[in-house]
C-alpha cells in the first residue's frame, strides 16, 4: 500500500513536470532562439542608411549559400576558417546568408553521406553548396552528378582541373585552394630559426597528395632558413612527420594527436608544426612549457589560432577563403558561374590582406625578434620569386625528383608522390 502511494506521488510529480514544460515554450516563444545564435552573426546587411532617408531602405534580395564543414564550425582551424569566410561573404554581399552543417564526417554523423546533407542545404534554399573537405570529394562528385545545375565548390579538390589526373567534366563544379605551400615554407622557416635541438616535428593529418606537398613545403622552408639564416648545416636538421590518419582526432579511429604531440615534445623535438585541423600541437606545447620545457608550436589553418597559447606560438599560416567565396557567390548571383579550378597564391604586397590574399601568415608572440626579422626577409625573398621546389631534389627513397636547376611544375607539386629526401616519416607513395 505504502509503495503504491509513493508511485502515485512520483507519477504525479512527473506529470506536473510534463505540464510545466509543455506550457513554457508557448509563453516565451520569442526569447528562446536567441542564445542559440552564433556570437558573430553579422548585421551589416544594410549599408549605412544615409542617401535617401525618406524612402525605406530596399530589402536586399536574400541569397542563401550552404557549407558543409568537416569539423566543428569553431575548431580554431580548417573549418572555422571556412565559416569565417562565409561570414565575410555575408558582410560583403547584401542579403547573403550562410547556412551550414558542421561535423560532416562519418564518425560524427553516422548513416549520412555528404551528398545527402548537401541536399538538406539545398532544400533550405541554398543556391551554392560548398564542400569544405578533401574527405567529401566523393560526396561532392555524387551530388554534382545528381544535381548538375546546382553550383558546387569543392575546396582543396582537383576534380575540375583539366590537366589534373582526376578531371571530371561538370558544368558547375568549382575547385578552390590556396597555395599554402608558401605558408608552410614560412612556418618551416620560423621553426628552423627557433629550434635549439635542431629537431622539428610535424603533426600530420592523413596522407595524400595535399598533405605530402604541404609537409614537404614546411621541410623545404626549414632547410633553406636553417642554412641561409641560421648558418647551420641543413644535413643536421631532423624533420619528422607522424600522421594521425585523419584531419582531426576521432577517438578510436585515429591516432591521438595529443599523444603524438607529447611524443615529439618529450623526445627532443622542440618545435611542433601542426598539419591537422585542430590545435593539439599548440595546446600540448603550452602544457610542456608550463612544466618547464623550452618548446614551441606552429598551428595551422585559422588566423586566430595562436590566441589559444600565445606564449608558445611562433605564428600561424592560414587560409583566407573569403575572397574566393565572394567571387563565387557574385558569379552565381550573376548567373555566370562555371566550372573552374583555382590555386591561389598570396598577395605578395600584403599577404595578410583579407580582401586579396588567399593565404597568409601571422607572427606569434613567441617568435624572437631576431628570428622574426629573418623570417620577414625570407617572405620578401619568396615575394621576389624564390622557389624552393627546384632541383636538385630527391624523393624520400633516394630516387630523383628534380634534376639540378629543374623547376617543379604545378602538377608535380600538387601530386607530389612521396615525401622528400631528408624527411622522416611515412610517405605511402602513390606510384
Amino acid at each position, binding site marked *: 500500500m505504502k509503495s503504491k502511494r509513493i508511485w502515485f506521488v512520483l507519477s504525479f510529480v512527473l506529470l506536473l513536470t510534463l505540464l510545466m514544460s509543455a506550457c513554457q*515554450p508557448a509563453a516565451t516563444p520569442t526569447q528562446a532562439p536567441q542564445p542559440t545564435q552564433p556570437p558573430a552573426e553579422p548585421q551589416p546587411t544594410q549599408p549605412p542608411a544615409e542617401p535617401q532617408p525618406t524612402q525605406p531602405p530596399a530589402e536586399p534580395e536574400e541569397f542563401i549559400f550552404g557549407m558543409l564543414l568537416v569539423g566543428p564550425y569553431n575548431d580554431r582551424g580548417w573549418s572555422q576558417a571556412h565559416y569565417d569566410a562565409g561570414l565575410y561573404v555575408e558582410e560583403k554581399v547584401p542579403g547573403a546568408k550562410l547556412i551550414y552543417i558542421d561535423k560532416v564526417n562519418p564518425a560524427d554523423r553516422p548513416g549520412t553521406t555528404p551528398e545527402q546533407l548537401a541536399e538538406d542545404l539545398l532544400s533550405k534554399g541554398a543556391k551554392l553548396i560548398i564542400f569544405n573537405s578533401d574527405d567529401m570529394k566523393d560526396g561532392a562528385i555524387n551530388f554534382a552528378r545528381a544535381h548538375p545545375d546546382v553550383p558546387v565548390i569543392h575546396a582543396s579538390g582537383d576534380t575540375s582541373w583539366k590537366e589534373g589526373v582526376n578531371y571530371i567534366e561538370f558544368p558547375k563544379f568549382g575547385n578552390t585552394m590556396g597555395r599554402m605551400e608558401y605558408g608552410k615554407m614560412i612556418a618551416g622557416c620560423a621553426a628552423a630559426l627557433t629550434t635549439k635541438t635542431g629537431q622539428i616535428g610535424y603533426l600530420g593529418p592523413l596522407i595524400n597528395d595535399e598533405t605530402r606537398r604541404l609537409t614537404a613545403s614546411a621541410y623545404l622552408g626549414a632547410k633553406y632558413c636553417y642554412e641561409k639564416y641560421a648558418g647551420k648545416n641543413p644535413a643536421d636538421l631532423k624533420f619528422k612527420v607522424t600522421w594521425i590518419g585523419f584531419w582531426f582526432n576521432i577517438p578510436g579511429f585515429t591516432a591521438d594527436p595529443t599523444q603524438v604531440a607529447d611524443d615529439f615534445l618529450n623526445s627532443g623535438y622542440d618545435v611542433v608544426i601542426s598539419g591537422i585541423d585542430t590545435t593539439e600541437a599548440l595546446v600540448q606545447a603550452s602544457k610542456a612549457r608550463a612544466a618547464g620545457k623550452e618548446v614551441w608550436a606552429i598551428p595551422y589553418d585559422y588566423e586566430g589560432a595562436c590566441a589559444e597559447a600565445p606564449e608558445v606560438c611562433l605564428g600561424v599560416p592560414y587560409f583566407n577563403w573569403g575572397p574566393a567565396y565572394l567571387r563565387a557567390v557574385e558569379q552565381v548571383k550573376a548567373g555566370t558561374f562555371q566550372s573552374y579550378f583555382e590555386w591561389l597564391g598570396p598577395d605578395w604586397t600584403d599577404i595578410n590582406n583579407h580582401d586579396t590574399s588567399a593565404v597568409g601568415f601571422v607572427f606569434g608572440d613567441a617568435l624572437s625578434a631576431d628570428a622574426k626579422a629573418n623570417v620577414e626577409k625570407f617572405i620578401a625573398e619568396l615575394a621576389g620569386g624564390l622557389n624552393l621546389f627546384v632541383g636538385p631534389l630527391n624523393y624520400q627513397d633516394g630516387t630523383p625528383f628534380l634534376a639540378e636547376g629543374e623547376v617543379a611544375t604545378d602538377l608535380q607539386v600538387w601530386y607530389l608522390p612521396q615525401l622528400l629526401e631528408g624527411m622522416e616519416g611515412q610517405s605511402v607513395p602513390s606510384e
Partner: protein
Amino acid sequence: MMKTSSRWSGIGFQTLAVLLALAFTTVVMLISGADPIQVYQNIISGALGSPTKIADILVAWTPLLLATAGLLLTFTAGLWNIGIEGQITLGAIFTTWALRLLQPTDLPPTLIMTIGFVAGALGGMIWAALVGLLKIYGNVNEIFGGLGLNFVATALTIWLIFGPWKRPGVGSMSGTEPFPLELWLPTLSGFRLSPLALAMGIIAIAIVYILLRGTYFGLRLKAVGRNGRAAFLMGIPTTRYMLMAFLLCGLMAGLAGATQVLAVYHRLIPSISSGYGFLGMMVAMLVNYQALWAAPVALFFAALNIGSIQLPIVLKLDSSLSGVLQGSLVLFVLLMDGVRRRLTRNQ
C-alpha cells in the same frame, strides 16, 4: 490471458512513457536554449518535407529493419546480442572483400553484387557464431564476447583501410576506394533508395514475424528464452537453438552491412555500421520484442534520424537530440513497465 483492465492500464502506462520521454526531451531542449515547438517542426519537415527525404528515411530504415529483425530472434532466445555492431561490420568487410576480388573479373555486375550479399551474410554469421560459441563452450557471457568482438571488428576495419585496402597514395581513415558505378545497387531514379535492399529488410522482418508467431521453431526459441533449464529438461536442445538464433541474427546483420556497402557508401568506411545495431536494440526493447511493432517503430526511429539533420542548419542544435528522444523513449517505456508490474503485483 491478460485481463482487459490490465491491458488498458498497460496502454495507459505506455502512453505515459511516451509523454514523459517527450517531456524529458523538451526539457533538454529548453536547457540548451532552443524552442521545442520549432525543433519538433523542423524534425517533422526535415523527415517528411520532400519525396527525397522520405526515400532517405527508407534508406535508413533498411539496415535498421534487418538489425532489428535479427535481434528479435536473439532476444527471444534470451540473448543480449550486443555484438551485432561487429556483425554488421563484418558483413560490410566480407562484401567489400568479395567485390574487390571479383571486380577485375568479367563476371556480370549483378552476379558480383549477389555474391557480395552472400559474402556479407556469411561474414555476419561467422562473427555471430563466434559470440555463440564463446558463450556455449567458453562460458563467456554474450554481452562481453560481443563487446570484445565489436572492438575487434572496428580494429579490423581500420587496419584494412590503412593497410591492405588503402587507396593508392592515400593513408586516411576516410575509407577504401569507391566501387565503380556498375557495382552500385540500382536505385529508384533520382533517389538514393534501392528497392531491392528495402525489399530485403521487409522480407527479413516478415520472416521473423512468421517464425516467432506461427512455427514450432519460434515456440521452442521462446521456451529457451523464458527458461532455458526447463526447456532443456523438456527435451529442447537449448544450445543448438541459441546458436541458431545467433546465426540467423548474424545473417541479417551481415546483410545490413552488405546493404551499407552496396547501396549507401559504395566502399568500406570506419563506422560502416552507423550505429544501426545499437539502434536496433533500442527498437527491439521499445516494442517489447514484438515483431509486429518493430517495423513501424524502426521507421519512426529512422525518420527521427533523417529529420534531425535539419536541426543544426536552422537552429544550430546538435543532431544528436534525436538520440536523446530515442534513448529516453526506451528508458521511460522500460521504467513505466517496471512501475506497472510493481503496482499490479502489490495489488
